[in-house]
């Protein structure tokens, strides 16, 4: 069934069963997002970027968690929404090694895009910067991981599990120390990584790269 929504005073059409975020993106209404994957039954909702305000709901909600309803009235650019998005972005940037010139994702990076969209400088002003010690995690036979670029969106973990039934990549540690880890996989023969690369493609920033040699 087709539904009509009013987003930022603009009428859009979409199909039942979609998430609000998807419906907006389908209609060229951009909402910043990092962890969203289409067709995932329960969205991760972890990046806390895709906030919108919906009429009748007091506080901003992440649009990836909302199923579209007919005649929904939505605003994507209220001060409340922007405040949360900017803070989320600044938080991510405060633990990000902003060295775009030397990053393979330069100009093809969601963080850059979102910063431009939200008019936030890449260098944090009020927040101190805290980087992890490990610049490159080279333990994986085929992949290099850059913890100080990673936004922990979890896309790589999800995609890998979907493709291979079991993820080579997973979250390790807790809280601020959380990282994507391979838990030092050693059995190279069991890995399909060399000709897969799905995780690298899924990464919205430059946190994963195939090793030069592979």
């Amino acid at each position, binding site marked *: 069934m087709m539904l009509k929504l009013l987003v930022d005073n603009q009428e859009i059409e979409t199909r039942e069963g979609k998430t609000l975020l998807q419906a907006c993106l389908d209609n060229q209404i951009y909402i910043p997002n990092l962890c969203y994957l289409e067709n995932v039954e329960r969205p991760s909702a972890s990046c806390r970027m895709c906030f919108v305000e919906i009429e009748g709901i007091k506080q901003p909600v992440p649009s990836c968690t909302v199923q579209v309803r007919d005649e929904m009235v939505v605003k994507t650019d209220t001060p409340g929404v922007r405040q949360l998005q900017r803070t989320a972005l600044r*938080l991510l940037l405060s633990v990000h090694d902003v060295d775009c010139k030397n990053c393979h994702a330069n100009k093809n990076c969601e963080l850059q895009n979102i910063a431009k969209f939200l008019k936030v400088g890449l260098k944090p002003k009020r927040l101190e910067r805290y980087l992890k010690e490990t610049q490159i995690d080279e333990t994986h036979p085929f992949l290099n991981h850059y913890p100080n670029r990673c936004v922990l969106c979890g896309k790589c973990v999800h995609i890998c599990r979907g493709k291979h039934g079991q993820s080579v990549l997973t979250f390790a540690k807790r809280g601020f120390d959380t990282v994507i880890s391979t838990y030092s996989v050693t059995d190279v023969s069991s890995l399909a990584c060399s000709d897969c690369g799905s995780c690298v493609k899924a990464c919205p920033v430059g946190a994963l790269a195939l090793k030069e040699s592979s």
Partner: protein
Amino acid sequence: MSPDNHKNIDLKFNTIRKEAEKRRAAFRDAPVPKIHIGMATCGIASGALETKKAFEEALVENNIEARIHTVGCFGHCYAEPVVIIDHPDSGFPPIFYHEVTPGKAKMLVKLFLGDGDPRFEHIYGATEENELIPSVTDFSRFNQEKRIVMEKCGRIDPEDIYDYIAAGGYSTLVRALKLDPEEVIKEVEHSGLRGRGGAGFPTGRKWKLAKSVIEQDKIVICNADEGDPGAYMDRTILESNPHQVLEGMAICAYAVGAQQAMVYVRSEYPLAVKLVTNAIQQAEKLGILGKGILDSTFDLKIDVFQGSGAFVCGEETALIRSIEGYRGMPRHRPPYPVQKGLWDKPTVINNVKTLASVPPILNHGATWYRGIGTQNSPGTAIFSIVGNVVHAGLVEIPMGVSLRTLIFDICGGIPNNKKFKAVQIGGPSGGCLNEDFLDTPIDFDSLTKAGAMMGSGGMVVMDEDTCMVEVARYFLDFTQKESCGKCTFCRIGTYHLLKILRRLTKGEGLEGDLELLETLSQDIQTGSLCGLGKTAPNPVLTSLKYFRNEYEAHAKEKRCPALMCRALTAFYFDLELCARGCDACATCCPVDAVFTTSNRKKGVDQELCVKCGECLVACPPEYDAVRKVSPPHLVPYIEKPPEKNKKDHK
């Protein structure tokens, strides 16, 4: 269930109850003294095992016959190990003894059990009104409590199902099984019971939602994760009366139509795990749990799941993930667990105290329950009260009692003649309230309005020597470490909060730090994925609001008004008071920071001093010469004689 079934249920249960009563009568009527020893984790930690052993040995040595009855916790942590001796032949009523060391135990056996002398100087009180000894019910710590959930705690042996049944246990399950599930839910709804796990969601409504889900396979989970630092209400209940929780779970499962249930308890609670597991086995053996409960058509299998003790796993969606074998990370709700819970099945998750409230509610009726507490928060609240308070421990009070009554009347106020400063309610996600809030009634809505929250019942009382910035730092340190790392605000935001608080306590605050704390806290509250992040800034926001001048002193003057933050304080000796030739401070200083002045008084080498405060303790009270100041530059200059003099001296 059909009336036929009712008859079976009654028949079956009556046989069990008769057996229970027989056993209780045999115990009660045995012509020997009874010694009841509190043996929950708190008692054991205070030495109850050694006390029990001492009783056993002394009984043999003195050739005295008596029965030892191990019970759970009375809730009087300040008095552990607690023992009640019931010695009718002596002519005295049952007597409550506190801090019963092995030595005291041996003495009581010899003198009280042997010679009939109850040793008045060691008596805390009689457990019932009488002519001979003041009763414990004269104390407000006893008479102002209202025990519903904990009524049987400390009175029965948690390892013996018959003890529970003889005290009326499981008769409410029998009654519930003879009602329609809808009637059970209606009664719980009418009682106004709200979830005791923190959020205060109406329990009846939750059960109704679960009942209305068509799917057959439903699950009931008892949440005993209890991760708040310093809180131990749920542990104590499980260790003191596990059957009441199981009975509540069985009633819930019957009402919502579940055949499977689980107690989710952290593995750091080994005694609770053991006692609950044992309780389930005993109940299954008697046919009170398992297949065809009490010969009815209702089946219920209860398992124990041991969590690994992450605070976030108390959050219901993370709890579910962890049972499923995944990393304990919360998920967005909706769907709520009642719609899609464990293994995607409809799941009712309730706190230990919520479930343990159910049997008394159904037993006495919803109207009775509504008569206790307040309009919007009926029933009782259980707190574990710790910190600067005389009678720390577990307290069950009717909702609506004021904080003042709880802290000053029931728990005896602040020790050492100190002044009350703040109370932190609701664990690490709660708020710090100042004395303006002492007359706030304790109920879900009033506490939330004040910026704190009921939480699951942790309460920390703080006196004037406590620095609120340091307290906020302490709680943030906890929540920050316990964040699961999933969402941006909680993972990175709480880390920034912690770093800012840390630098304030070190006198390294930056321009705009207080404003940054405030706005960042607000964004973390609104932006976080789960309750952990949403509530983590509460200690910061409330202390900023109610103790703002203290933050400003740290930020602007590098001063800690409570003299707690080490980097912002310094010690010196008042030379007017310091006694010539006294070496008390110098001998105890662990870093040799105390030097002798040219006129044989003492001074502190500020470069060396680590501010441990040992000198303050060591200085004889008749001199009382040690002073602590903040900021450190207030220390008067005291000349240190040249080093070589010292060497020459030696």
